[in-house]
């Protein structure tokens, strides 16, 4: 499938240039599975995470089916396995790898004017680890699933759960090493392989965002790995430090888990910030407003993100003083996020805006992320959080960030760089339809959940009181629109691989080194190492492409 898709390119090499990365290494499966080319590895990742997106999406579909009627369609135990599968697959096998491993892998070397990442073999290894992790995860699902929720809370996961917990833990453990190696590669590449003249403040914000993400990947993921290993041993040998029956402390698990998993929330949004910061200036034909603020707000989020974890534990029995501190810190981290929203909006001000599909996704992102971010302030509030904990309010809040935000950014980025990746233009009309469907479908799915949560509907239950049905039916109806919106690109992007119009090197008249090389790029990206002389996003006053 992989090879077949792209061999379609081979018959028509780009006019007047040498072979592209798609054709140069040949068309065999072997040439793909043993490639060291960051662009090909990005394609491998794209195919893998697309598969997992639809696996996780299938679980979400069944969840929304179940919730159409108050008693539910499935047994509670089945329902537990469904939302656990949805959470684990979407978090670790789609959202965390989503933008970094696909667009990041493809674009970072191009954007910094390098021929590849610093450690290409490690890059391939990280994909193989991801595949091994994915297979372990699918085996755990196929064998009967896990019912712990994606958070693996102890002592349920260590003592009582009858699911395939250890297998799922192993899957997440291995995927963690895949993340770590990707992060390591990004950090080292951005430090060491920038083209001459590409100073830190000339670096595209996409690189900065992925750099900030990589810091979290490298520094937070090992904590998750060792914590899950401790849970697995505790479950297997019935000894450990988390189960109160053994003298341990379940709060210790929650501290360790959220010490990773809250920064991981920023892994699941920072790369999206990067994509939006590329798209908005291009389609507003203006330099990014307040470049340094956008850059440093990413770094600030990565840093402060390590000190807000216990806001997941306000009702878990931490002290009031700890609660106050973590509440305050959670408010503080909203500041850099808000700076970004203001800067994107200011970039639009007096811009020459065009509403191509990537821009529709970007504008959708800004709106949805703002709602997600503002409701984040609600749940950062100690008093309100007591009311909202474990309700659909929280579910709606984080879906606005992760799905409304990150998935929109991923789709926006995929469309924006599609011509670069494949050498073909996607059909614009279809792409706009999909973007609009996703925006409205998303809001219809998740806005009712704010209301449900505020009214007191608890998450993770297969059934609910009948008075909540109307909002649940609205939400499920929205989910069906969302599903169509997410499925559409599969068809028209697939179609464009063969029938799409040829894209030149720079169909959007965008700045940035990735647009200064043919589409699709040659195996080593640039024939001559480019030299950079100007800051990024020089769309005005001088819209000419920068000299390379």
């Amino acid at each position: 499938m992989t090879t077949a898709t792209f061999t379609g390119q081979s018959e028509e090499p780009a006019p007047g240039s040498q072979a592209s990365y798609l054709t140069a290494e040949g068309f065999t499966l072997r040439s793909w599975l043993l490639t060291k080319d960051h662009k090909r590895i990005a394609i491998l990742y794209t195919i893998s995470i697309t598969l997992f997106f639809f696996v996780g999406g299938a679980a979400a579909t069944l969840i929304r089916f179940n919730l159409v009627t108050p008693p539910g369609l499935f047994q509670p135990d089945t329902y537990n396995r469904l939302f656990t599968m949805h959470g684990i697959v979407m978090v670790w096998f789609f959202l965390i790898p989503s933008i970094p491993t696909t667009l990041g892998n493809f674009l970072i070397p191009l954007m910094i004017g390098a021929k590849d990442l610093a450690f290409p073999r490690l890059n391939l290894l990280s994909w193989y680890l991801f595949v091994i992790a994915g297979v372990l995860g699918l085996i755990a699902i196929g064998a009967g699933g896990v019912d712990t929720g994606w958070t693996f809370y102890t002592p349920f996961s260590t003592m009582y759960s009858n699911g395939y917990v250890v297998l799922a833990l192993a899957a997440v453990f291995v995927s963690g090493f895949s993340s770590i190696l990707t992060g390591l590669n990004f950090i080292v590449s951005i430090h060491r392989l920038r083209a001459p003249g590409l100073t830190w403040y000339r670096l595209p914000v996409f690189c900065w965002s992925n750099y900030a993400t990589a810091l979290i990947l490298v520094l937070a993921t090992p904590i998750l790995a060792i914590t899950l290993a401790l849970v697995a041993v505790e479950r297997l040998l019935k000894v450990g430090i988390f189960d109160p029956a053994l003298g341990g402390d379940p709060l210790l698990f929650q501290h360790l888990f959220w010490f990773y998993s809250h920064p991981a929330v920023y892994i699941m949004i920072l790369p999206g910030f990067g994509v939006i910061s590329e798209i908005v200036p291009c389609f507003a034909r203006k330099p990014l407003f307040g470049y340094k603020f956008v850059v440093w707000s990413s770094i600030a989020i990565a840093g402060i993100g390590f000190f807000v974890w216990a806001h997941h534990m306000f009702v878990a029995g931490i002290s009031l003083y700890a609660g106050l501190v973590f509440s305050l810190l959670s408010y503080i981290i909203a500041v850099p996020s808000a700076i970004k929203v203001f800067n994107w909006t200011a970039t639009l001000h007096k811009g020459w805006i065009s509403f191509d599909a990537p821009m529709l996704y970007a504008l959708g992102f800004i709106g949805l992320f703002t709602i997600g971010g503002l409701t984040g302030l609600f749940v950062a509030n100690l008093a309100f959080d007591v009311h909202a904990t474990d309700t659909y309010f929280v579910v709606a809040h984080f879906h606005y960030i992760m799905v409304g935000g990150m998935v929109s950014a991923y789709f926006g980025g995929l469309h924006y760089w599609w011509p670069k990746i494949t050498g073909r233009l996607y059909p614009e009309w279809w792409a706009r339809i999909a973007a609009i469907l996703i925006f409205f479908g998303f809001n219809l799915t998740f806005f009712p959940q704010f209301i449900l949560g505020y009214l007191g509907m608890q998450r993770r239950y297969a059934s609910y009181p009948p008075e909540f049905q109307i909002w649940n039916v609205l939400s499920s109806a929205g989910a069906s629109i969302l599903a169509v919106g997410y499925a559409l690109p599969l068809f028209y992007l697939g179609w464009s691989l063969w029938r799409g119009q040829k894209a030149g090197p720079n169909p959007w008249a965008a700045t940035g080194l990735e647009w200064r090389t043919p589409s699709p790029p040659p195996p080593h990206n640039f024939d001559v190492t480019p030299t950079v002389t100007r800051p990024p996003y020089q769309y005005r006053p001088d819209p000419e492409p920068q000299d390379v």
Partner: protein
Amino acid sequence: MSETPLAPQDLGRLHLEPQYATARQQAETAAFGMWVFLATEVLFFGGMLFGYTYLRATFPEGFAEAARETHVIIGTINTVVLLTSSFTMAWAVHAAERDRRRATALLLAATALLGLLFLGLKGLEYYKEWEEGVVPGLNFHKDGPNAHVAAMFYYLYFMLTGVHGLHVTIGIGLVALMAVRAWRGGFSARYYTPVEVTGLYWHFVDLVWIFLYPLIYLAGRSGP
């Protein structure tokens, strides 16, 4: 280091990858990559050390009581062994810098042997602990009011030293490989990056032990 042009056999060994402009850039990048990896490793051990700290603060007496029964003599000898191995490792890198092929190979071999000695002593310690019945989950026969705290102490002890031992094992493999490559003349004053990077890793593994030693063996001994 001289700036003489590379000899052809050196060029062959360097395997300069296309993304690098110079051998120097490649070598420095490799070292930087190892530093970033070690940052990950710090947090990997950090998770367990946080668990240790948290529980020791919760159960100070129980932890002190259990820690007093650890084999401090073996632990101390092992600390000396591992520190010595770091010395031979540092010396090996120094020798590699100066193109002393035999010295590099022998010092690397000495490092690997000291690593093996460490593992042997650790194994002896594990054996004694098995005999004493302090292996939680598998063979644990302590009673008394603090038995469950001792179980958690020993659980963390085995996890920490086990993961550390795994790192030592990987380190021995890498160092031995470097010794063979050095003996066969695989390195020169222009190219010894793998030795240097392996050295960084080895020193890190040593450094982890420097933290484990007082936490495991000395924690309970000052009290009554």
